[in-house]
């Protein structure tokens, strides 16, 4: 299996007044295509910063990040937006659907930014919605859907452009145990179909569903029950 994400001594520091805070302190991590990796850590451990870094929403102070064979740690904004659009599907704790758009329009959005022509775009969006079992709810707005359904629409949006990585940040954090379980089941199925999953959580019971668990504490990584896929 080829390496999809290679982080090498990644460091991120912030200045807070006179103090320098090391949010990430020399992180090295390799994730291969098809893996299901869970990054677990308490709040303030730097896991959100790590997620932003992997998701290309933030750039490191030092170190390197190779994504799908391309060095991405020193790229301009518009190039990063482009890579995010093609390579990363975000799944947020708060779903982050646009409330005035229908489920279908929400799923279509990343394809619009990619510039996919109309007919092809509609086909891809519909396919993604059907994959999460919500093809019949395409004209509903997020407000008319349950939490679990909203998260599934959000997953469909992440899937629509067929990105190699799905980046999920506490995907079950706003759901009850049962619907949370359903969403986790869906994520596992997607992994079995070949999607690479990076999941960030502070919840061990969620993390235990992953094949590989990485602990983060004070900006440093410690690998635990790693059974690398392959």
């Amino acid at each position, binding site marked *: 299996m080829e390496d999809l994400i290679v982080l090498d001594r990644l460091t991120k520091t912030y200045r807070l007044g006179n103090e320098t805070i090391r949010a990430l302190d020399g992180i090295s991590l390799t994730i291969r295509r098809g893996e299901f990796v869970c990054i677990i850590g308490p709040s303030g451990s730097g896991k959100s910063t790590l997620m*932003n870094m992997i*998701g290309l*929403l*933030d750039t490191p102070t030092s170190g390197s990040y190779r994504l799908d064979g391309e060095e991405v740690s020193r790229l301009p*904004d*518009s190039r990063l*937006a*482009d890579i*995010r*659009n*093609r390579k990363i599907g*975000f799944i*947020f704790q708060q779903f*982050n*659907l*646009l409330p*005035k*758009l229908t489920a279908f329009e929400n799923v279509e*959005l*990343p394809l*619009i*930014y*990619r*510039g996919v022509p109309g007919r092809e775009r509609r086909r891809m969006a519909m396919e993604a919605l059907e994959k999460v079992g919500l093809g019949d709810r395409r004209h509903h707005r997020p407000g008319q859907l349950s939490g679990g359904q909203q998260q599934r629409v959000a997953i469909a*949006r992440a899937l629509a*452009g067929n990105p190699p990585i799905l980046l999920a940040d506490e995907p079950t954090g706003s759901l009850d145990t049962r619907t949370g379980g359903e969403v986790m089941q869906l994520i596992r199925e997607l992994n079995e179909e070949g999607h690479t999953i990076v999941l960030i959580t502070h919840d061990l019971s969620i993390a235990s569903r992953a094949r590989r668990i990485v602990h983060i504490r004070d900006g440093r990584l410690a690998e635990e029950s790693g059974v690398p896929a392959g």
Partner: protein
Amino acid sequence: MIFQSVKMAFKSILANKMRSLLTMLGIIIGVASVIALVAIGQGTTRRVTEQVQGLGSNLLTVNIAGRGPSTSLDYGQAMRLADVEGVDLAAPVVSQNATVKFGGTSENVNVTGTNRDFLGVRRYEMAEGRFIGDVDLTFRHRVAVLGAETAASLFGDESPLGQTVTINGNRFKVVGVLAAKGESSAGSSDEIVIIPITTGERMFRTGGVRTIYLTVENEREASVVRGRVEQELAGMFRGNTNSYRVFSQQELLETVSSVSDSLALMLGGIAAISLVVGGIGIMNIMLVSVTERTREIGVRKAIGAKRRHILLQFLIEAVVLSGLGGLFGIGAGIGAALGAKRAAGMDVVFSTDIMLLAFGFSMAIGIVFGLFPANKAARLNPIEALRFE
């Protein structure tokens, strides 16, 4: 992408109907007032211009202001202007308001003493009978020609021809009636009684001719002829140039158009101010909207929207708002102008140029005042935007 953004902009405008309407109000009022005021202004200008042109653009009017023998002219002297090179017709006028009676009815009208050229100079036509002739002047005949309205109010449906009216107690025989001409800026030109000027001079005991209407043979030489007339007058009054004044229709038209030009400039200024105020309103609401939608912007950026996508989205929203305001404003302006036409009988002229200009200007306002909020949205940091509650 652009089509999607326009669709999105309409969606977000429709989602907040009340707010959008209030935002557009500044632009609507600005554009509507320009459209309405310009329509009324141009209507008035057109009416005045038509009236002035109706008198003939080859007309010169000489007003005699002076009194006393050295500063006034009698009919004979006035007619020397008819011999000036280039002058075609010359109609000196003495006039006074007088009571005209027929049977039991009496009217207070303008009684004008003049000669036969008056008919052509003022572009009257005869309805029946004849006009004042040279012979009437020579023998100071007591004959009168009635304006259409005066004839109607004194005689009703009867024919006045051959009847006798009294003017200030003097008996005059009616020899003709003028055809109706309509209103003019100087009052009705159909309420008039015309008598021979020589008869008038004796009856009114005026100190000479007050007004002389001259027509020019060739319109294009009007200013040259006017110079000659002024020279002749200067000779007559021995250089006392304050005693007379010569007006040409051209001059009047120029005055009218310069007044309407400065009016248009003023309207433009008012419009620009109100549109700028409207633009500030749009900027204000767009800034609020950017703050409200910070999270949305964060999501859009996370899933791959570039700066220019966000910039374009908010800019299009501002332009759609201001453009829509412009359209509503044009509608409201047309409505207001038509209302003024119906209620106050004003003339209105709608100009497509002004409408296009107002619409274009309101769109431009959207771009100018939308740029700052849109740029603010585009520069948001996606991480902070996503964290925004």
